[in-house]
């Protein structure tokens, strides 16, 4: 069992994650453009498997665009039935996420 606070995706390296729960919460960041505090919403999943290995960790995003990738899976926690292969590329405003959802075998 690996303990790590957050899953950090490496550019160009696919990571396979399984989520067990989620929360949406408000947080304040410093806007890189204006330097001022800015309230935003973050989406955070609890992760219990990373690349097939058990972990206790979280996957968090403040990107509204990326959060929308998961929007259909939030009602009824449908994400629990899937593994997600996430591949990130680019950085800053150029960050792009590629997503593949793979159904998990019924247990």
């Amino acid at each position, binding site marked *: 069992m690996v303990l790590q606070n957050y899953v950090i995706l490496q550019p160009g390296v696919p990571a396979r994650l399984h989520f067990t729960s989620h929360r949406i919460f408000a947080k304040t960041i410093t806007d890189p453009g204006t330097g001022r505090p800015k309230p935003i919403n973050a989406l955070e999943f609890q992760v219990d498997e990373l690349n097939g290995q058990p972990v206790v960790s979280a996957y968090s995003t403040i990107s509204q665009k990326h959060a929308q990738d*998961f*929007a259909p*899976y939030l009602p009824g926690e449908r994400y629990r039935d899937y593994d997600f292969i996430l591949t990130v590329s680019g950085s800053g405003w150029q960050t792009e996420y*590629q*997503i593949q*959802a793979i*159904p998990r075998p019924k247990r």
Partner: protein
Amino acid sequence: MPREERERRYVADYLLSQFPAGGWVTNVPLGPIPEEIIARHGLVAGGKLFRPSRPRIDAVRWTNAGYWLIEGKIREAKAAIGDLLVYKALAEKTPDLPNYDGQPFIMRLVVPWALDWIKQAAESHGMELAIFLPPWVEDYVRLRQNYFTSEVRLAREEKIRLREQFGLE
């Protein structure tokens, strides 16, 4: 109307509802990778290096029978028809398409509704047209249609005023 990301959700919603068993990837970069970059870095590393300059299609889906190039648009269906034609041309030259094994390419346009001329244009370009209208898109369209009516405008101004009054702006 505040900027909000909807098309990403639209495509994700479509894929989950139509293909819950998977077999697809979203946001796929298309187009050739220059030979000299492949020669120097290899296909995988070269693809990563060159990725930022490549356009991305909303999703691809594969079976043994075909390889679907999927573009979803809530509005601007006309633009999506043009995009798909470009994406197909690029897909034919893309060396790193996920799970591609020589299947024929099939263009699929996903829209909440389509006027006749959109249907005809898609058909004349050999595209499949999928109509997908989840309830939240209906709500969005209704909101958009009413956005500039006096009733909605006044309600919006009142909301802004209250937010300012309570220090939420």
